[in-house]
């Protein structure tokens, strides 16, 4: 059964450390999104890719965050250096190229920066 996968599911790290989160979109989906969810802000779009090309990363703090899609089966979100305010759940979602705009979400990575 096709689904978006994310690793790790949970990550606890110390301030200043590098964090890399990975996402495998549903096979055949050509658009991949990264979201961050906190109690205060809700779900916020950080960046998204279509056909592996970054289309919008305006929601992402550029100085410490970077997102890449090295191939069609892997998207990464990196934070370097991490800060306590980055603590959140990070979701990856993917969408196919059809007219239906449903996004399928992965299980999320719960990040805690101490």
């Amino acid at each position, binding site marked *: 059964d096709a689904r978006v996968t994310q690793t790790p599911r949970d990550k606890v790290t110390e301030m200043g450390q590098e964090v890399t989160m990975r996402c495998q979109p549903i096979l055949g989906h050509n*658009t991949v*999104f990264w*979201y961050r969810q906190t109690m205060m*802000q*809700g*779900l*916020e*779009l950080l960046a*998204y890719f*279509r056909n592996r090309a970054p289309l*919008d990363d305006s929601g992402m703090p550029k100085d410490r965050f970077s997102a890449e899609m090295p191939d069609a089966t892997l998207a990464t979100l990196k934070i370097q250096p991490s800060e306590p305010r980055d603590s959140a759940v990070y*979701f990856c979602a993917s*969408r196919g*190229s059809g*007219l*239906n*705009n*449903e*996004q*399928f*979400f*992965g*299980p*999320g990575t719960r990040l805690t920066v101490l």
Partner: protein
Amino acid sequence: EDKVVQSPLSLVVHEGDTVTLNCSYEVTNFRSLLWYKQEKKAPTFLFMLTSSGIEKKSGRLSSILDKKELFSILNITATQTGDSAIYLCAPNYGGSQGNLIFGKGTKLSVKP
């Protein structure tokens, strides 16, 4: 500025009650509106609405869109404890296939 407002922010009801969740939006180049249910994990898709006045229904859940007044409602009848979740509204907007902007959600708690 694009925005999505959901109300109420939280709601506590008893099993069997009917609830109505509201979503108002202001986005440019509106394409459709999606509802998601989020329990402990990732949001899961409920409905996509593109046309005004046409109700979408799935079991005890139904939803309708008003593109003139820029809002949507999600109804749940005969609520069950399993309906307890955060319900997220997300207009899809912009060019090409568009992007989603999420409201902060309505947290529904259904008590036995």
